[in-house]
């Protein structure tokens, strides 16, 4: 968002009657650019099942580009993983793709995403160092705003991505 892009997510429209996968398919079809982080293909807790939503969505996106026509053929995506070749153990079909790793380091993730945006979408973007610094400053302002609005730590943890995006948008207006 600090590079001037608008994130789209399936929960942006709160219509419980709409099937989630249909929302996702529509977003994929309408988005020229996409970022897939498949580093969270693990169970959240020991004994739970791993989660495969992200690789499933990545598959839909890659399929959309390959089987679609017109502008769908021009879709560009960034695939991110935790460690460089971990994905080979679980999704070996991706071996031919250029997958970037972030080592679970948010700063590295920002740098990789920024590099990809600069190469494919906007040539004149802020440096990774600047975006990381601004992200940290946002985190402080976010906490201060939440305190002022009496949004406690638990509520912050469970805040929807849509609401969080709204905080970011408002912050960017003044920074």
């Amino acid at each position, binding site marked *: 968002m600090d590079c001037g892009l608008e994130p789209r997510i399936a929960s942006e429209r709160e219509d419980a009657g709409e099937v989630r996968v249909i929302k996702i398919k529509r977003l994929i079809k309408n988005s020229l650019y996409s970022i897939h982080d498949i580093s969270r293909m693990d169970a959240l807790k020991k004994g739970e099942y791993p989660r495969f939503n992200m690789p499933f969505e990545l598959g839909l996106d890659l399929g959309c580009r390959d089987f679609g026509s017109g502008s769908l053929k021009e879709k560009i995506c960034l695939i991110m993983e935790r460690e460089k070749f971990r994905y080979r153990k679980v999704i070996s079909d991706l071996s031919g793709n250029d997958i970037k790793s972030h080592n679970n380091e948010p*700063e590295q993730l920002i740098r990789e995403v920024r590099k990809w945006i600069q190469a494919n979408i906007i040539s004149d973007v802020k440096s990774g160092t600047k975006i990381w610094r601004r992200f940290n400053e946002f985190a402080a*302002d976010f906490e201060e*705003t939440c305190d002022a609005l009496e949004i406690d730590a638990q509520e912050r943890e469970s805040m929807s991505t849509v609401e969080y995006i709204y*905080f970011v948008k*408002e912050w960017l207006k*003044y920074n």
Partner: protein
Amino acid sequence: MAVKKASKTKKAQMRKKAIRAKIRSTMKVVTTTSPDRVHVISHNKGWAVQREGAVRASKVFPKKDVAVSMAKSLAKKGAASDVVIHNKDGTIQKWDKE
């Protein structure tokens, strides 16, 4: 039934609008860049002591506790009002206010 559902949706939308207006007005007050605020943030060479809004870090240390000490000494000397210590993911670990 449909009318009841529609009024419920309208109420929810109004509530959402009111919350967003609150966020907007609070964010506007809170987000003023404060050069008196010093952040300790993760850096590719360790931990940086960074004044809010400054282009470059004041200093980078390999260890976080040393960076925190430096930031706190700035506050002691009166060169900073707040010291905001971040976690590795950017979230706030501790906030020392004047």
